[in-house]
C-alpha cells in the first residue's frame, strides 16, 4: 500500500506543478464568475442560473481536466522514460496503475474543491446559500469526472493521447445522451429493430453520464431544483461509477500487464 501511496503522492506533486491545470482552473473560475452576469439578466431568481451555470462549469472543466490527466499522465511516463525507473522497482504494474489513478483522482478532488469554493462564495454573495442538495450535486460531479478519468486512462492505453482525448470527449457526449438512446430504442420510432438493438447495447455499454447530469432544466432525471434528488440516488450513481471505474481499470491493466515498455 505504501508503494501505491508513494506513486499517488508523486503523481499529485507532478500534476500540481503542471501549468495547464492552472489555466483550466482559471477558465472554470471565470465561467463561474460569468454566471453572475447571466443571473442578473435572468427574469427569474438569479441564484437559479448561478447554480445551474456554476455546476455546469464545474462539471465541464472537471471533465476536461479528467480527460487531460487521463490521456497525458501515464503517456508522459512512457514518453519521458521515467517508467524505466519505476517499473523495475519491486512493485506490480497494477500498483503502478492504481497509484497513478489515485494521484490523478486526488488532483481532481483538489480542483473540484477549489472550483466549488469559488462557486459557493459567488452564491453566498448573491443571496443564495450552500445547501445539502448542492453538496449532493458536487458528489455526483466528482463521481462523473472519476469515471471519465478511468475511461480516458483506458483509451490512452490503446492509442495516442490526442486520439484518446477526442474519443474520451466523444464518449462523454454519447454517455450524456444515453437516456435519449434508451428512450429512442424503446419507443420503436426508428423503425429498424437492428438500430434499436444497437442503441440498447450502447446504452448498457457506454458510461451513463446522464446519471450524473445534475444541472439543467427541471425535466432532467436529476435536477437540483427537484426534491427527489436523494442521498440514495447519489449512492446508487456513485455505486455505478465505482463499478465502471473498476471495469475500466481492469481493462487498462489487461492492456498494461504484458505491454512492452519500449
Amino acid at each position, binding site marked *: 500500500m505504501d508503494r501505491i501511496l508513494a506513486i499517488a503522492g508523486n503523481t499529485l506533486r507532478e500534476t500540481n506543478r503542471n501549468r495547464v491545470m492552472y489555466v483550466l482552473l482559471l477558465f472554470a473560475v471565470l465561467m463561474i464568475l460569468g454566471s453572475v452576469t447571466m443571473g442578473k439578466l435572468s427574469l427569474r431568481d438569479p441564484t437559479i442560473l448561478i447554480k445551474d451555470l456554476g455546476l455546469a462549469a464545474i462539471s465541464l472543466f472537471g471533465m476536461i481536466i479528467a480527460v487531460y490527466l487521463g490521456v497525458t499522465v501515464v503517456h508522459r511516463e512512457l514518453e519521458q522514460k521515467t517508467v524505466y525507473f519505476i*517499473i523495475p522497482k519491486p512493485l506490480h504494474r497494477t500498483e503502478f496503475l492504481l497509484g497513478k489513478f489515485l494521484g490523478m483522482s486526488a488532483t481532481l478532488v483538489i480542483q473540484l474543491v477549489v472550483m466549488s469554493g469559488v462557486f459557493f462564495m459567488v452564491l453566498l454573495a448573491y443571496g443564495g446559500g450552500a445547501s445539502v442538495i448542492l453538496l449532493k450535486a458536487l458528489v455526483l460531479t466528482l463521481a462523473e469526472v472519476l469515471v471519465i478519468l478511468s475511461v480516458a486512462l483506458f483509451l490512452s492505453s490503446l492509442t495516442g493521447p490526442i486520439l484518446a482525448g477526442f474519443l474520451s470527449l466523444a464518449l462523454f457526449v454519447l454517455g450524456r445522451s444515453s437516456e435519449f438512446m434508451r428512450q429512442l430504442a424503446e419507443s420503436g420510432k426508428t423503425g429498424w429493430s437492428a438500430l434499436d438493438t444497437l442503441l440498447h447495447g450502447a446504452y448498457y455499454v457506454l458510461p451513463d453520464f446522464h446519471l450524473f447530469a445534475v444541472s439543467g432544466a427541471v425535466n432532467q432525471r436529476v435536477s437540483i431544483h427537484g426534491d427527489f434528488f436523494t442521498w440514495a440516488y447519489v449512492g446508487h450513481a456513485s455505486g455505478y461509477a465505482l463499478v465502471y471505474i473498476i471495469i475500466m481499470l481492469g481493462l487498462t491493466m489487461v492492456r498494461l500487464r*504484458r505491454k*512492452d515498455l519500449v
Partner: protein
Amino acid sequence: MAEQQTKLEEQTGSVAEETAEAVIRATALCKTFVVGFIPIAKLAKSGTQDQRTEPDPKVMPRQVEAVKDLSFSVRAGEIFGLLGPNGSGKTTTIKMMMGLIFPTAGRIEVFGETVPNVAVKRRLGYLPENPNFYDYLRADEFLELSARLCGVDKKTRRSRIPELLERVGLAEALNRPLRKFSKGMVQRIGLAQALIHDPDLVVLDEPLSGLDPLGRKQVRDLIGDLRDQGKTVVFSSHILSDVEVICDRVGIVVRGHLRDIGKLDELLSARVTETEVVLEAATPDLADLADLANLANLANLADEKGWPAQRKGGRLRISLPGETDPGEVLRRALDDGARVISVMPHTESLEDLFVREANK
C-alpha cells in the same frame, strides 16, 4: 559460422554447468519488434516462451529482430560486461531482465525465477540508459521516493540517503531539483537510486556515458566496491578501456547474436594478432661480412613470405602476422648464427576484438 556456433555452445554450456550459483540465466532469448500498424498473424503466433520460429522472409520488412537466440549466464559475485555496438541488442536484453519488455521466445531467469517477479526485483537495482527521472523532485525527494518504492523503512532511509549522495559525489546537491542537474549528475543520482535498497544484483545500462574522467573513475571505484561487498554487477558499455579494467567476464553482442563470452584473458589471449621477432647479427656493428649476409638472407626470407621486416643497423625486426609459427625464422636465425633478442606475441586488445566481431 558453424564452428563459431559450436564454440559458443561450449562456452555457454560450460557456464550453464556452473549455474548452481547463476544469478542471471538467459536461454535462447529472442526479441522481435513488430514495426507498422497492423501486426502480422504469423508473428503473433510465435509469442510463446521456449518456442522458436524461423523468421519468414515475407514478413521481414514488418519486424525487427533485436535479439536472436541469446544464451548466457552471470554468476554470483562477478562483474559481467555486455558489450556491443549501437543497436546490437544490449539494452533490449537488459530490458528483458528488468521485465520492461517480454521475450518473443526463450527465457530469462534472475535468481532462479522467471521475470518479472516482485521478489526478484527486491534484490535488483537498475540504472537505465540515458536516464530521465522526475525532474521536479529534489535529489533527496527523489531518493526518498526510490526508497519508499523499494520498501526501505523510514529509519534506514534517513541514514542511507545522505550516505549514498556522498558516495556518488552529490552531497552538496541534496536540495537541488533534478532539472538543474547536468547529464553526469543525473547519471550519478541514477546510480544512487539503483543502490538505495542495497540490492544483491546491480544492472547498469551504460553507466559511464556522460561522465567526465573523474566521474568515470568514481563509478569504476564504486563498481569495484560493489564487487568487494559480494554484489553481482552487470553493465553495458562502449568505453572499452573501462570495461577491461572492471569486468571479470564479458559477452559481446552483435546484431542481436552473442558472438563471444568469457573471461577477458581467455578471450583475448587466444588471439595473437602478430608475433614480433627481433634478431641481431653475431657482431652487432656488422664488422663481419658473413653476419651482414646472414641478416640480409633473413630479411629476404621475410620478404618472400610477405612478412613486414625492418632492418636497422645490426638488428632485424620481423612481424609475423596472426598466429604464424615463429619456429622457421628462429631455426634459420640460429643456423646462421644470429642472436634472438626477443620473440613477442602481441595479443588482441578488447578494442581489436570488439571491432573484429562488429565487422564480421
